[in-house]
């Protein structure tokens, strides 16, 4: 073991040093910018979370699992999971081993940032010693891992279907430069280390390449050329990194602790949102996820393109995408960096609403709404059917039938016309107006003295859960409540052995995480068959109030797509738990569509 280049410097390191310095400076400035843009309360919350032991542990685990091993991607697609984690983890290990070697052999050189990276060039290590051959083997092993990942990446770029992606993102020019330099780095490293394998030692990757290209590699004048090329590839990648999707590599390390601190999205491109925008790896999972993707013209409305437009400050296009979205949340559920896609869109809608002049809302008439009769009975249920349910009276009727069967005392909240829950206004970006409705409803509910608020609409349920803060009132969706009644034995049903498929309404499933209660209850009355895609991958019915600009004609293909997904296993009945889904599916379905309560009411055991 000896130092080959006594000066410990060669001009070829300069591109790398330049690139690395630039990236570090850029990230530092971006970090400061993000922290400054947080408001004081959020900053305190973030700082507190950084010193809380449980969050520290969670942060470290998430950074390793998400950034290095891509656990989430592994669960979804093994090939893509291997591709990403091999490159990320392999590269990480090569850097770490380079540092370990420097620390072991020549710690006085550690302060030179390029030394561990180009360790093989500066140091002459022999593979005849145990220590030497161990490190050579490790380095070559991880190089092989990365090269296999790069090979899959190249295949994926040209034939994404082979690795299971229908569509992949259209890259920008800088993305391409970053991509091609990333592809070039590791083969060049392999060749560069092939040279040193001739003069010093190597292992199963570097020695064979030295033999194979013996004519080329035995000429000493080629050595610096190879190392120069390797350094230039590294330098190019690092220099363009902040302007490409590869910015997600450093940004995600910041995003994970910010997300774990529970910071809300307050702005479209400031603070937490900026960290989120930088973290988008443009992988394109959201493109295939988006239900609007059934029509090719909507492909460019996927979250990845919205992020790109927000980054570029393209307001017109960002607004178009933000207003068109169904807000079903599927892209966010599948997103590898857990991008709050709906939150960003909502922030955009809200900021636009606040900016533009419009006829102000006036809900003064709500003051005249009479308070509900006060009840003192313990455990009395207040049933809020919601606006949509008045168009689907079968739901409200069935719910009442089931409640009566179970002997539950209940009161109707909106029999004389309902006050909207406020979520549609909120989704349109009218936060302040939505607040007015929320306050009115909250007053009505709290003054009624009911202990349980039963809701039969997934849209209403979500806002009751998220924004109402009802004191002393338990908000329950009827799927939860009826399932509880079934488990307690208060509700008796018979099994019709009909095959049922359950559609997860967006706001109930992805929005509130209720997947199992309706399924458990439905298993008691029929035979549940799976849909092609269900639970967090369920497809929006297309009727969503989340979209502001999507036309009626463009909703139809979405509904048909969702129906095809549901009827893949030939069920006799489609069951949903949201009046809007019921109404939307009813238009085009070839299989009868029924509401959850309707199915229970039909199968009540009256004996």
């Amino acid at each position: 073991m000896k130092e080959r280049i006594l000066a410990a410097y060669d001009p070829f390191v300069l591109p790398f040093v330049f690139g690395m310095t630039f990236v570090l400076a850029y990230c530092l400035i971006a970090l400061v910018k993000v922290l400054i843009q947080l408001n004081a309360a959020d900053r305190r919350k973030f700082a507190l979370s950084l010193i809380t032991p449980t969050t520290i542990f969670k942060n470290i685990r998430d950074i390793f699992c998400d950034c290095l091993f891509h656990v989430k991607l592994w669960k979804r697609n093994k090939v893509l999971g291997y591709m990403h984690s091999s490159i990320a983890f392999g590269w990480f290990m090569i850097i770490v081993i380079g540092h370990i070697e420097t620390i072991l052999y020549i710690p006085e050189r550690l302060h030179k940032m390029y030394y561990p990276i180009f360790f093989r060039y500066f140091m002459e290590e022999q593979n005849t010693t145990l220590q030497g051959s161990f490190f050579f083997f490790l380095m070559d092993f991880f190089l092989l891992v990365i090269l296999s990942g790069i090979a899959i990446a190249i295949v994926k770029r040209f034939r994404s279907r082979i690795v299971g992606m229908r569509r992949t993102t259209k890259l920008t020019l800088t993305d391409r430069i970053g991509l091609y330099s990333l592809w070039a780095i590791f083969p060049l490293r392999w060749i560069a280390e092939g040279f040193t394998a001739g003069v010093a030692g190597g292992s199963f990757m570097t020695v064979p390449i030295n033999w194979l290209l013996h004519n080329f590699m035995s000429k000493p004048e080629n050595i610096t050329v190879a190392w120069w090329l390797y350094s230039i590839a590294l330098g190019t990648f690092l220099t363009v990194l902040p302007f490409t999707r590869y910015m997600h590599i450093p940004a995600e390390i910041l995003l994970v602790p910010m997300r774990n601190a529970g910071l809300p999205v307050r702005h479209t491109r400031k603070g937490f949102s900026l960290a989120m925008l930088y973290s988008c790896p443009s992988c394109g999972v959201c493109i295939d996820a988006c239900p609007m993707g059934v029509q090719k013209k909507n492909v460019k409305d996927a979250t990845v393109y919205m992020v790109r437009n927000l980054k570029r400050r393209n307001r017109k296009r960002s607004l178009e995408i933000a207003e068109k979205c169904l807000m079903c949340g599927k892209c966010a559920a599948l997103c590898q960096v857990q991008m709050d896609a709906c939150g960003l869109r909502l922030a955009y809608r809200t900021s636009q609403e606040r900016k533009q002049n419009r006829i102000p809302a006036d809900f003064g008439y709500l003051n005249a709404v009479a308070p509900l009769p006060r009840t003192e009975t313990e455990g009395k249920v207040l049933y809020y059917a919601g606006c949509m349910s008045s168009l689907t009276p079968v739901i409200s009727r069935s719910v009442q039938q089931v409640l009566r069967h179970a002997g539950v005392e209940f009161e109707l909240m909106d029999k004389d016309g309902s006050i909207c829950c406020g979520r549609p206004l909120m989704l349109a970006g009218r936060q302040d107006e939505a607040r007015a409705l929320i306050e009115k409803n909250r007053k009505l509910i709290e003054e009624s003295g009911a202990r349980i608020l039963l809701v039969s609409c997934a849209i209403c349920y979500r806002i009751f859960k998220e924004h109402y803060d009802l004191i002393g009132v338990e908000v329950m969706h009827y799927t939860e409540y009826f399932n509880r009644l079934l488990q307690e034995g208060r509700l008796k049903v018979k099994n019709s052995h009909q095959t049922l498929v359950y559609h997860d309404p967006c706001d109930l499933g992805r929005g509130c995480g209720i997947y199992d209660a309706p399924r458990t209850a439905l298993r008691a009355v029929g035979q549940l068959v799976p849909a092609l895609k269900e639970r967090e991958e369920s497809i929006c019915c297309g009727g969503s109030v989340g979209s502001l600009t999507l036309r009626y004609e463009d909703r139809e293909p979405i509904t048909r797509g969702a129906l095809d997904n549901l009827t893949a296993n030939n069920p006799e009945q489609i069951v949903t738990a949201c009046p809007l889904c019921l109404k939307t599916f009813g238009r085009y379905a070839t299989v009868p569509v029924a509401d959850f309560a309707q199915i229970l009411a039909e199968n009540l055991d009256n004996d």
Partner: protein
Amino acid sequence: MIDFGYGLTPSSTLKIEDVRLPAFGELLRREPDAAKCIACGSCAASCSAGVFTEMNLRRVILSLQRGREKETLPLLRHCMLCGKCQLVCPRGVNTRHLILSIGKVYQLEEDKR
């Protein structure tokens, strides 16, 4: 027709010059569905706000086309955007976006004056 002021009922004369064509054109550009309405009144019949107030989308759209929006535009302030009208509309008009667009376009016009 000359109004002598002796009528028993208020005049229902429509004046073409009262119609704010540029505003309606801008509305059509933002939401082309405005032209689809057949004034069937399903929206008004199902309206949540209509239970408590005079809110009536059909009347608003008609009055915009007839230059009599002054009386009806304030009705839109009661809208809770619940989207029931969108569900019942036989023409598939995107009523929620239409209401939002009317609010913006006509307020903009108001501000200009």
